């Protein structure tokens, strides 16, 4: 009973915040409402027993996306007065199309087919052979490892895409991350105390992902957030994007994962197949490298395209 009331309150809140995000006039309050929406969504994922997704939503939706959108809103502030508002027919069309998608999803959820075909029991039955205890990690790195490899490559491509937004003359320059302008302020205190804790939590998230909710992506996001905090507070300079060490860190994760996949040809008879008994160590090695790469890549994604060259 109490759980039902809780879910009703949660859903009502979610709808109210979503409505506010769409109908708000000022970009800034829409962005803040969107951050609140992300936080609420993390609680929804917990209620749906999807803790891994809740971890990612709390990290990305609450933290990194909020930072990106706030930076965008502050840049757009000057042009907001002259923004052209869209016409009513266009907005009506968008509303109707969104309502159709919602109706379709609701129909799928509320009226499922009579025989639901699911691989979940088979997946759980074979999980122990790989040495993993977390079914999500099993899906990510054993059953659908190919998808995970492609996703990590997509992250690198996204980073290249963000970098390509810069004018040609700034390629390889320093990202235009907005840095807090007062040195030696109380923000410096936060960015001296929080990152060590954050690094421990990030490594813990990656390590516990083998048997409990967690994993490389969540750990990497925490590392990225800590690095961004240190850069925003001015304790570390924003690095130039043509530094070789930086680019190596970005690709070391996908590269090691790809190498493990190719080694699978020789040792286990297929791409991304693991030799018996070596599955868990190989997966841990791949996840460790991926955590590092994801941390660096997400940090660079949030830092934005290069805006100036290093003064020589």
């Amino acid at each position, binding site marked *: 009973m109490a759980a039902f009331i809780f879910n009703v309150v949660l859903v009502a809140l979610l709808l109210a915040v979503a409505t506010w995000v769409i109908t708000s006039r000022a970009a800034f309050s829409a962005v803040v409402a969107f951050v609140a929406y992300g936080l609420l969504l993390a609680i929804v994922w917990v209620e749906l027993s999807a803790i891994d997704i809740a971890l990612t939503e709390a990290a990305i939706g609450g933290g990194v996306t909020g930072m990106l959108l706030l930076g965008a809103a502050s840049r757009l502030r000057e042009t907001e007065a002259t923004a052209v508002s869209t016409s009513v027919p266009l907005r009506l069309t968008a509303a109707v199309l969104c309502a159709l998608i919602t109706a379709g999803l609701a129909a799928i959820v509320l009226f499922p087919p009579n025989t639901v075909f699911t691989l979940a029991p088979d997946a759980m039955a074979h999980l122990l052979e790989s040495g993993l205890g977390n079914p999500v990690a099993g899906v990510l790195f054993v059953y659908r490892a190919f998808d995970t490899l492609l996703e990590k490559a997509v992250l690198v491509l996204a980073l290249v895409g963000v970098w390509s937004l810069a004018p040609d003359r700034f390629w390889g320059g320093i990202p235009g991350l907005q840095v807090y302008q*007062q040195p030696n*302020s*109380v*923000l410096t*205190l*936060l960015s001296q*105390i*929080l990152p060590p*804790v954050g690094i421990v939590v990030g490594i813990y998230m990656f390590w516990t992902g083998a048997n409990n909710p967690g994993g490389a992506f969540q750990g990497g996001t925490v590392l990225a957030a800590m690095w961004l905090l240190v850069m925003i507070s001015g304790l570390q300079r924003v690095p130039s994007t043509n530094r070789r060490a930086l680019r190596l860190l970005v690709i070391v994760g996908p590269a090691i994962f790809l190498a493990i996949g190719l080694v699978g040809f020789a040792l286990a008879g297929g791409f991304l197949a693991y030799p018996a008994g070596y599955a868990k160590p190989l997966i841990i090695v791949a996840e460790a490298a991926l955590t590092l790469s994801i941390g660096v890549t997400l940090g660079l994604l949030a830092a934005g395209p290069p805006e100036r060259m290093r003064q020589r």
Partner: protein
Amino acid sequence: MTAALNIFTVLAVSAGTFFFLAGTVGLLRFPNTLTRLHALTKADNVGLGLVVFGLLPLVEWPFGALKLIAVWLLVQLSGSIIAQLIAIIVRREES
């Protein structure tokens, strides 16, 4: 023993919830930004502290309890520093 611990949990969590309500009322009803900020940080520190305090008998000892306390300390640390930073911005915009 368990009954006493249960009563302790109920009391502490209720007190914590009360402070969260107080924080919201403060945020909505206080006259200016700085006083609202004050209400906000009370919810952070005392509200969450009482909730954590009340949940301590329910989690496994010691590591579960240490994790709860660590969460509370993190929220306190970042919350109080954020309050300072927001206050600096409010002062700057007022002047």
